[in-house]
C-alpha cells in the first residue's frame, strides 16, 4: 500500500463503517426501537469507532509510518508555537552545517582528492638544489643536461619527463588566439599514463630538434577551435607563426595542472590553461652545458615499490657525479628535491586551508553548543509536561520519543537547509581554488563532508533534546509535580551545564574574532605597505609575439619600439613601457652579475633578479631614481643597466655604483654593462617582502616573446583599453592582445587568496559572535523568568533597581569573562599555526586580543541588558501574586 493512498483509504473505511452503522441502526429500528434509541443501540454495538479505525490502520501495515507522521505533525505544531526559538535553532544549524560542508568540500578537493592520473601517488615532482644558492632559491627547476643524465642512469623511475609551459598565438591572420602551450619531453605520456584519444602520442624521435613541429591538442581546444574535427589528425595548424602537424587529441577527461603556478621561479597569478602539447626538444648546445639554464619542471613516475626517499637518494648520487665533473669556475654542490605531485600542487595553500577548516569547525561547534543550550533551556520548561505524561503511565521510551520528536524535526530542517546552502555556495568557491589546483572542472558538493557535519549536528541536537526525558525519568513524577514550578528554579547541575556551554561559545568566538582580526590587520598592512611603485590610472596587458615573425631580440625590440612610439603619441597616454614581468606577477630571470675584477666561480657570485624593460618603465610605475639617470632611447644598442639600491650596496659596497661595470656570463664574449643609475628598492615580486637584488637591462639587449605592457594614462584608463589594442594591431594584426587589467587590479589579485581567507574568517567570526550573543541572551532571559518571584521578593524587600541590574549582569557576564579568557588562551595556543600567514602583526598582539575580548564583552552586555531590564521592571505585587 502506498502512503499517498492513505487519504483515499481512510475515506473508504469511513464510508464502510458509516454504511454498516446505518444498516445496524435500521435493523434496530425494525425491531421496534425509536430512531434515537436505535442510533444509540447501533453505536453501542459498534463500540469505539476511533479504536476500530486505529486497529484497521494497523492491519494496513502503516501504523509505524502513521505514528511517525503524527510525531512530525505534533513537533511542527509545537515548534510553530515558539517561532523565534525554532527559527534561531534552524538557522544556526543551517549556517553551521552549510559553512562546514562548503569548506570541507574545498579542503577535500584541494588536499585529499586524488589527482586524475593513474596511480597518482607514484607521481613526484623533481627539482634541483644548489647548496650555494639555497638561501635565495631553496629549490630550482631542472636543467636539460642533468635531466638527460638522470634519464640515462636512474633505476628508480618508470619514466621521467621535463616540461615548460608558456603561451603562444594560435592561428595566422588577424587577431589570433593566445593559448597555453605545454612543451614536454615525449616521456610525459608514460609518466602520466595517458594516451591521446585520437591519433598518437609523441614518439622519441619527435623529442629531437628539427622533428618537433608536431602537436597534440587538448580536448577543449579541439572542440572549441576545430569544431571537434574527427579528421584533424595529420592536418597542419599555425602555432607561434609556424606550421605544426596535429598528431593527436587528448581525451576529454585529461586535465593538466598549470605549471606556472608551481614553478619555483616564475609565477603569474592567472595562468592560461594548457591548450596544446608540443614536444620539448633540446639543441646540442643546450645539452652540452653542464650548468645550463635551470628552466624545466620535472615530473617522474616512481617504479612500483620504490619510495620517494630511495629515488631521491639515487638522484642525489647522480647529481654528485655531475658535481664532480663540473668545471672549476662553475663548481656547485648539487642535489635534488622530490615531492609527491599532489603535495607540490597544494604547496603553501595547505596552511590557510587548515586554518579555515579549524575555524569553520569552531563555528559548527558554537552552533551546536548554541542549539544544545536553547534546547536545554526549553527542556526545563518541558519537565512539567513530561512529569504529567510519566504520571499518566508513559514509559521511558515514550518519553524520550516525545522529547526527541521536536529536536529531530529541528535537526532535519536545519541540516537540510544547511546542505542546500552548501550546495549553493560551493560553485561560487571555485574562483577561490588555488590556481594550481583549479584544473579539474567544476567543484562538487562533497557528500562525505555534508554527512559528517550533519551527523555532528544531529548528535548534538538529539543529545540535548533527550535530556529532559532522562531528567524526568530519573526522578519520580510526583516529585516534579509537587514542587511548584514557578518557585522551583532550574537544578544546579543544568544551570552549571548551560553556563559552561555559554563559556565554550564565548571562548571559540573570541578565538575566531581574534584570528580574523589578525588576518584583517595583516592584510591592511600588506596593502598599505610602501611598495615603491604606484598604480593609479595604469593599465597592463601581456603581449605574446609569434616566434616565426619575431625570431630574435632584434625583431622583437623593433616591434616594441614602434608600438611604444605610437602609444606615446596617443592622446591621453602619459607613459607607456614594456617589461619582462609585470609587478607582482612573479619573477622569471635569475642571473649572476660579475662585477669587473671579480674572479670567483660562478656559483659563488651573488644572484640577482633580472628584468628587461623599456626606458619609460620607471616613470610609468613611478619607481624612484636615487642617483644617476634612467636609460633612454638614445642609448639604443648600448649595454647599460640600472640596479636597485640593494644590488649597488652588495656589488660595490662603499663605492659610487654609477659608471661601474659588470658582466653576466663570459666577459670575453659579451660587452659588459655600465651602471647608469640606481633605483629604490621596491616590492615588485611580493608585497610581503622587499625585492631581492634587482638588475634592469634595456629591452634592446634582450627581449622575449612574452612581454608585460604598462600604460599610465591621464584619464580613466578603462576608456583607453581599446585605443591601446588598436595601436598594437596597427603595427601587426597577428599579435594577440589579451584582456587589459589595471595595475591596481594586478596588485589586488596578488593578495586574492589572503583576502578570501580573511573574508571567510570574518564571516565565521561574525556568525560566531551573533550565536554567542544569542546564547547569552537566551540563558539570561531564561534565568530571569525562572527567578521572577525571587526578584519580585527582592524588590518588595527594598532592593534597588540598580542592584537588580547588577545581579543579572553579574550572573550573565561571569561565563563570558571566563570564556573570553579561555578564548584568548586558545588563540595564543594556535599562534604557531597562523604566524607564518601574518604580515607585520604578532599573533600575540595585545591590542587585538584586548579588542577581541572587548567585542565579546560588548556582545555579552548587550545580550544581558534586555533581560536585565525586564528583571528590573518586575512589579513586586504582580510577581508575588502570580500562580
Amino acid at each position, binding site marked *: *500500500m502506498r502512503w499517498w493512498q492513505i487519504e483515499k483509504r481512510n475515506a*473508504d*473505511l469511513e*464510508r*464502510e*463503517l458509516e*454504511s*454498516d452503522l*446505518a*444498516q*445496524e441502526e*435500521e435493523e434496530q429500528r425494525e425491531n421496534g426501537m425509536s430512531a434515537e434509541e436505535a442510533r444509540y443501540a447501533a453505536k453501542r*454495538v*459498534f*463500540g*469505539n469507532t476511533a*479504536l*476500530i479505525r486505529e*486497529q*484497521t490502520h*494497523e*492491519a*494496513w*501495515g502503516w501504523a509505524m509510518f502513521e505514528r511517525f507522521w503524527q510525531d512530525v505533525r505534533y513537533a511542527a505544531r509545537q515548534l510553530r508555537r515558539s517561532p523565534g526559538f525554532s527559527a534561531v535553532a534552524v538557522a544556526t544549524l543551517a549556517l553551521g552545517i552549510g559553512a562546514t560542508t562548503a569548506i570541507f568540500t574545498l579542503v577535500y578537493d584541494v588536499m585529499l582528492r586524488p589527482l586524475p592520473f593513474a596511480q597518482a601517488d607514484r607521481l613526484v615532482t623533481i627539482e634541483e638544489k644548489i647548496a650555494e644558492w639555497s638561501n635565495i632559491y631553496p629549490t630550482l627547476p631542472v636543467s636539460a643536461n642533468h635531466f638527460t643524465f638522470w634519464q640515462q642512469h636512474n633505476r628508480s623511475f618508470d619514466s621521467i619527463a621535463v616540461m615548460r609551459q608558456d603561451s603562444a598565438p594560435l592561428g595566422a591572420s588577424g587577431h589570433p588566439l593566445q593559448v597555453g602551450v605545454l612543451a614536454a619531453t615525449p616521456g610525459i605520456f608514460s609518466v602520466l599514463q595517458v594516451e591521446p584519444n585520437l591519433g598518437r602520442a609523441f614518439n622519441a624521435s619527435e623529442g629531437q630538434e628539427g622533428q618537433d613541429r608536431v602537436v597534440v591538442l587538448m580536448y577543449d581546444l579541439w572542440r572549441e577551435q576545430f569544431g571537434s574535427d574527427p579528421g584533424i589528425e595529420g592536418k597542419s595548424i599555425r602555432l607561434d607563426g609556424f606550421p605544426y602537424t596535429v598528431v593527436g587529441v587528448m581525451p576529454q577527461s585529461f586535465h593538466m595542472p598549470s605549471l606556472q603556478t608551481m614553478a619555483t621561479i616564475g609565477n603569474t597569478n592567472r595562468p592560461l590553461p594548457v591548450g596544446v602539447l608540443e614536444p620539448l626538444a633540446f639543441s646540442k648546445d643546450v645539452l652540452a652545458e653542464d650548468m645550463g639554464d635551470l628552466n624545466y619542471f620535472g615530473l617522474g613516475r616512481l617504479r612500483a615499490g620504490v619510495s620517494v626517499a630511495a629515488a631521491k637518494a639515487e638522484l642525489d648520487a647522480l647529481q654528485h657525479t655531475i658535481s664532480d665533473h663540473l668545471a672549476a669556475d662553475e663548481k656547485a654542490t648539487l642535489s635534488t628535491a622530490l615531492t609527491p605531485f599532489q603535495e607540490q600542487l597544494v604547496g603553501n595553500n595547505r596552511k590557510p586551508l587548515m586554518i579555515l577548516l579549524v575555524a569553520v569547525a569552531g563555528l559548527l561547534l558554537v552552533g551546536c553548543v548554541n542549539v544544545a543550550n536553547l534546547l536545554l533551556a526549553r527542556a526545563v520548561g518541558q519537565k512539567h509536561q513530561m512529569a504529567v505524561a510519566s504520571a499518566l503511565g508513559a514509559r521511558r521510551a515514550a518519553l524520550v520519543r516525545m522529547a526527541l520528536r521536536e529536536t529531530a524535526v529541528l535537526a532535519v530542517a536545519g541540516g537540510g537547509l544547511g546542505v542546500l546552502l552548501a550546495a549553493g555556495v560551493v560553485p561560487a568557491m571555485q574562483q577561490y581554488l588555488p590556481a594550481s589546483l583549479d584544473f579539474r572542472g567544476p567543484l562538487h558538493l562533497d557528500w562525505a563532508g555534508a554527512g559528517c557535519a550533519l551527523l555532528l549536528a544531529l548528535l548534538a541536537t538529539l543529545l540535548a533534546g533527550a535530556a529532559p526525558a532522562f531528567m524526568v525519568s530519573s526522578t519520580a513524577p510526583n516529585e516534579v509535580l509537587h514542587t511548584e514550578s514557578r518557585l522551583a528554579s532550574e537544578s544546579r547541575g543544568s544551570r552549571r551545564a548551560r553556563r559552561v556551554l555559554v563559556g565554550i561559545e564565548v571562548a571559540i568566538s573570541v578565538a575566531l574574532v581574534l584570528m580574523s582580526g589578525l588576518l584583517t590587520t595583516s592584510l591592511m598592512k600588506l596593502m598599505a605597505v610602501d611598495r615603491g611603485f604606484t598604480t593609479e590610472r595604469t593599465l597592463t596587458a601581456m603581449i605574446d609575439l609569434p616566434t616565426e615573425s619575431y625570431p630574435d631580440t632584434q625583431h622583437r625590440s623593433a616591434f616594441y619600439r614602434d608600438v611604444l612610439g605610437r602609444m606615446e603619441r596617443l592622446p591621453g597616454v602619459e607613459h607607456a613601457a614594456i617589461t619582462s614581468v609585470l609587478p607582482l606577477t612573479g619573477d622569471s630571470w635569475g642571473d649572476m652579475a660579475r662585477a669587473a675584477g671579480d674572479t670567483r666561480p660562478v656559483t659563488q657570485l651573488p644572484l640577482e633578479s633580472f628584468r628587461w624593460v623599456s626606458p619609460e618603465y620607471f616613470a610609468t610605475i613611478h619607481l624612484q631614481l636615487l642617483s644617476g639617470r634612467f636609460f633612454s632611447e638614445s642609448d639604443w644598442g648600448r649595454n647599460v643597466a640600472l640596479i636597485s639600491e640593494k644590488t649597488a650596496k652588495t656589488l660595490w659596497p662603499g663605492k659610487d655604483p654609477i659608471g661601474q661595470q659588470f658582466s653576466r656570463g663570459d666577459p670575453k664574449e659579451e660587452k659588459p654593462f655600465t651602471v647608469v643609475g640606481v633605483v629604490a628598492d621596491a616590492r615588485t615580486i611580493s608585497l610581503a617582502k622587499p625585492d631581492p637584488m634587482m638588475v634592469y637591462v634595456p629591452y634592446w639587449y634582450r627581449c622575449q616573446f612574452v612581454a608585460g605592457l604598462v600604460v599610465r594614462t591621464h584619464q580613466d584608463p578603462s576608456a583607453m583599453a581599446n585605443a591601446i589594442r588598436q595601436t598594437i594591431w596597427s603595427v601587426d594584426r597577428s599579435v594577440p592582445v589579451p584582456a587589459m587589467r589595471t595595475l591596481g587590479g594586478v596588485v589586488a589579485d596578488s593578495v586574492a587568496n589572503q583576502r578570501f581567507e580573511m573574508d571567510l574568517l570574518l564571516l565565521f567570526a561574525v556568525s560566531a559572535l551573533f550565536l554567542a550573543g544569542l546564547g547569552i541572551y537566551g540563558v539570561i532571559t531564561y534565568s530571569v523568568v525562572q527567578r521572577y518571584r525571587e526578584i519580585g521578593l527582592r524588590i518588595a524587600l527594598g532592593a534597588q533597581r540598580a542592584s537588580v541590574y547588577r545581579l543579572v549582569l553579574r550572573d550573565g557576564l561571569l561565563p563570558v569573562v571566563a570564556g573570553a579568557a579561555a578564548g584568548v588562551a586558545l588563540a595564543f595556543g594556535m599562534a604557531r599555526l597562523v604566524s607564518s600567514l601574518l604580515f607585520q602583526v604578532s599573533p600575540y598582539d595585545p591590542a587585538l586580543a584586548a579588542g577581541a575580548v572587548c567585542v565579546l564583552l560588548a556582545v555579552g552586555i548587550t545580550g544581558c541588558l534586555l533581560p536585565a531590564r525586564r528583571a528590573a521592571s518586575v512589579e513586586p505585587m504582580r510577581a508575588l501574586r502570580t500562580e
Partner: protein
Amino acid sequence: MTKQQQQRANLLQGTLDMLVLRTLLYGPAHGHQIGKHIQRTTNDFLQMQHGSLYPALHRLERRGWVSSKWETAPDRNREFKYYRLTEKGKKQLVAEESQWKQMAEAVARVMWPAAEES
C-alpha cells in the same frame, strides 16, 4: 496489554479469519452481514467485536484472500462494501480448515482419551 491477553487475542484472530472466509463461501457480503451471520449461527456464543472484524477484513484483503467492491444492496437503496472470496482465499480456507481440524482432534485426544479408544 499483558502477555496473557495478547495470546488469547492472537488465537481468536486466527480463528476469526477462518470464520470470515467460511462465511463468504455463501457469497459476497458486507461487514455488517458477516458479523451478524457469525453471531447468529453460533447462537450469539461468539459476540462479534467490530473492533476486530474490520481490521480482520482489511487484513484479509491485503493478503489477497478477499476482494471488495462497493455495490448497492438488492433490498435497500444504499451502497455497501461487499467482500468476495478470491481463489487464493478459497485455498487458504481449505488449509485453515484442515489445520483447525487437526488442532481440534489433537485437543480432543488429550481431553477425552476414553472416548477416543471406544
